[in-house]
């Protein structure tokens, strides 16, 4: 992927992180990869030799692809800056990803998760920075996600940030956002 495509994907991610829950299309379509086009584009844009990555539950072809295209060093989950995983298999009950320290909360990992679907899960309501009023989303995340998020909110500014990918789309959930179950009136 060329620098111009990377710049465009970065700006999409910057917009998505600035507008939590808003589904955005990843503009450039990278070459064939063992990941969704959105996830591959995000990796090619953000990862390089100075970003430590851990994989959980990914196809065995992903690690060599990341090594060839990003040169990102593979590390264990508790040392990762970025974690690639499958949304539906993610173990929210005992997440091992780093959440940073009180002084350096930015050391909390970015989870890049592949999802089947960004809008067919349980309806959730978001409030917080980047959202004027409220925003409703329904990404299909595994059980225990809400409990995980509420626990992580109690540890703010420590925490992880999510980039959820499905096909050629993504949405971001920065740790600053408050998430609750959306109960229709």
């Amino acid at each position, binding site marked *: 992927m060329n620098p111009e495509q*990377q710049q465009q994907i970065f700006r999409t991610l910057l*917009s998505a*992180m600035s507008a939590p829950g808003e589904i955005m299309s990843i503009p450039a379509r990278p070459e064939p990869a063992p990941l969704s086009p959105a996830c591959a584009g995000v990796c090619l*844009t*953000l990862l390089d030799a100075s970003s430590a990555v851990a994989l959980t539950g990914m196809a065995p072809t992903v690690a060599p692809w990341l090594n060839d295209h990003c040169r990102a060093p593979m590390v264990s989950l508790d040392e990762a800056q970025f974690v690639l995983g499958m949304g539906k298999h993610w173990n929210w009950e005992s997440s091992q990803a780093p959440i940073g320290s009180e*002084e350096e*909360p930015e050391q909390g990992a970015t989870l890049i998760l592949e999802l089947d679907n960004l809008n067919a899960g349980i309806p959730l309501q978001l409030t917080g920075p980047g959202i*004027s009023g409220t925003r409703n989303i329904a990404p299909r995340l595994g059980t225990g996600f809400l409990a995980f998020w509420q626990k992580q909110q109690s540890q703010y500014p420590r925490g992880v940030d999510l980039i959820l990918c499905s096909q050629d789309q993504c949405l971001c959930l920065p740790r600053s956002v408050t998430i609750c179950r959306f109960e229709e009136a």
Partner: protein
Amino acid sequence: MDYNFAYLDEQSKRAIRRSLLKAVAIPGHQLPFASREMPLPYGWGTGGIQLTAAIIGKNDVLKVIDQGADDTTNAVSIRQFFARVTGVATTTKTVKASIIQTRHRIPETPLQEGQIMVYQVPMPEPLFKLEPRRTETRILHALGDYSLMYLQLYDHITRYGRVAIGYDFPVMVHDRYLMSPSPIPAFDVPKMHMSPALQIFGAGREKQLYAVPPYSRVVPLAFDDYPFAPLQAQAPCAICGSQHSYKDEIILDDKGTRQYICSDTDYCEQHRC
């Protein structure tokens, strides 16, 4: 000379981009970044220039202001620099810009969703004058302990009867971090609160960056009985007549005759008719 697009190499851009995403996720928190040498001296906004270089693309329209004006030496140099190393379109009109790099002002024209404000920051640490040790201020931010700053404001009130901070007025972001809004006048601070635009801040010499996402709470420090009340020249602009803009004071003669004109030159032009 052959330059990479936007001058910075791709690896440096990627490092800044990763930090920017974290900065947006933790509003008001300062992050270190590997600040590079730029072909402009420190004090010329190299922090802001590096952030702009990391985000800018060929479809952007760039506006650069210094003290509200597009035509000062600093603003012209930075605008010409980016025109040369990116070929992007530039503008002086706030409404047409996708990226606005600024020193010392926020435009009077309300910002819109999708716009990005890039602030040049000389000193990112709001507690610097009260606690010069970086190791200590980091702990205070971690604890959210801003009593030093409240004490200073209280001291102002007992001495002067008001908080005498005209520029760089300390603000709380998302009710968590004390943040320097950069040396903008206190008059501009309310524009940051719940702004539809993304605001990012770069300090080149201090190697720090931070961000305020759109629609975020940005609240000036104050006491219940001494609410935030920035001073502002009451006279209308001598050129456009605006009552609402921030004014520069111009001394006209030896007798000290004064005139007030808008500091935001684009706004002032739009209001002449």
